[in-house]
């Protein structure tokens, strides 16, 4: 009966595949990712195929979602940012659905694997670097020098700015991973208490499990939202060097 609360995060290969020494086996996380991708695709295609003037339930949900993402992009990046809309909408919907599907008992939270979140973070940060160097050339290195820095502070400010730049992908990856993992560990511990407590006292942790599940739904939304916002902020920084404040409203 005694199980580690970290047990649900272990992955076992279902179909071991090795490609030139590279382990690309199919496991639960991979299957859930396929499910999420096809779910998002089917839902969005179904919502988009009706195109009624007075939208039905699904269509208005999709419209709300698209409007929400559009609002985030316009707030943080301005109009130029709209060319990233497909990428950002995909990231948002994928992370949101991964987080939500993970809450179904017996399912798996893909975003509780740091590999997944780290790949997203590196993708976003790498894209912002490429964009910055393409748009500004070598001048993009000026992102390491905040405007209005006196010259004698430069030897101190450049390492600090370098660290805070490098911290961006790490904080993106760790935030999503840690929040999802911690939430599910708490759920696991509470549920373990409920089972080992028996009927007499076990209802109390069980009630907490239900409350925590509700809270986790909120966290799923907030984490997807903050990941999207920070993606926009980082890409926006690459767009307008030091000038993103005038677009902030």
């Amino acid at each position: 009966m005694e199980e580690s609360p970290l047990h649900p995060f272990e992955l076992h290969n279902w179909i071991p595949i090795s490609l030139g020494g590279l382990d690309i086996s199919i496991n639960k996380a991979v299957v859930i990712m396929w499910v999420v991708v096809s779910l998002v695709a089917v839902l969005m295609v179904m919502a988009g195929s009706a195109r009624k003037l007075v939208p039905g339930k699904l269509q208005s949900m999709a419209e709300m979602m698209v409007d929400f993402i559009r609002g985030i992009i316009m707030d943080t990046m301005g109009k130029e940012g709209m060319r990233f809309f497909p990428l950002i909408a995909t990231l948002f919907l994928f992370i949101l659905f991964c987080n939500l599907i993970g809450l179904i008992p017996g399912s798996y939270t893909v975003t509780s694997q740091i590999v997944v979140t780290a790949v997203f973070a590196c993708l976003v940060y790498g894209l912002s670097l490429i964009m910055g160097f393409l748009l500004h050339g070598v001048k993009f290195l000026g992102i390491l020098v905040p405007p209005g820095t006196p010259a004698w502070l430069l030897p101190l400010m450049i390492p600090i700015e370098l660290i805070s730049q490098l911290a961006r992908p790490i904080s993106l990856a760790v935030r999503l991973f840690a929040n999802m993992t911690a939430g599910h560990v708490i759920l696991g511990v509470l549920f373990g208490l409920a089972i080992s407590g028996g009927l007499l006292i076990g209802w109390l942790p069980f009630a907490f499990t239900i409350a925590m599940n509700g809270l986790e739904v909120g966290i799923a939304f907030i984490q997807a939202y903050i990941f999207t916002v920070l993606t926009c902020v980082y890409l926006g920084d690459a767009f307008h060097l030091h000038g993103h404040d005038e677009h902030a409203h």
Partner: protein
Amino acid sequence: MPPSQDPLYAGLGQAVRIGTDLLASLIVGGGLGWVADTYLFGSTPWGMVVGLVLGVVAGIRNAYRSAQQWPKT
């Protein structure tokens, strides 16, 4: 009001942001210092000490900067 300007969402977003930003700067600072110590200069433990201090400074600076952009409610 579009949901992206909802002060609740914006505030929650900021709150969630700051903690991890502090931690990540610390990890990066300490990590860079450790790498400099172990692989580049062999100056254990000074690189890590300096790196950690710089990491703390960078983290607090990040938190300060994102607090400056807090939505006015």
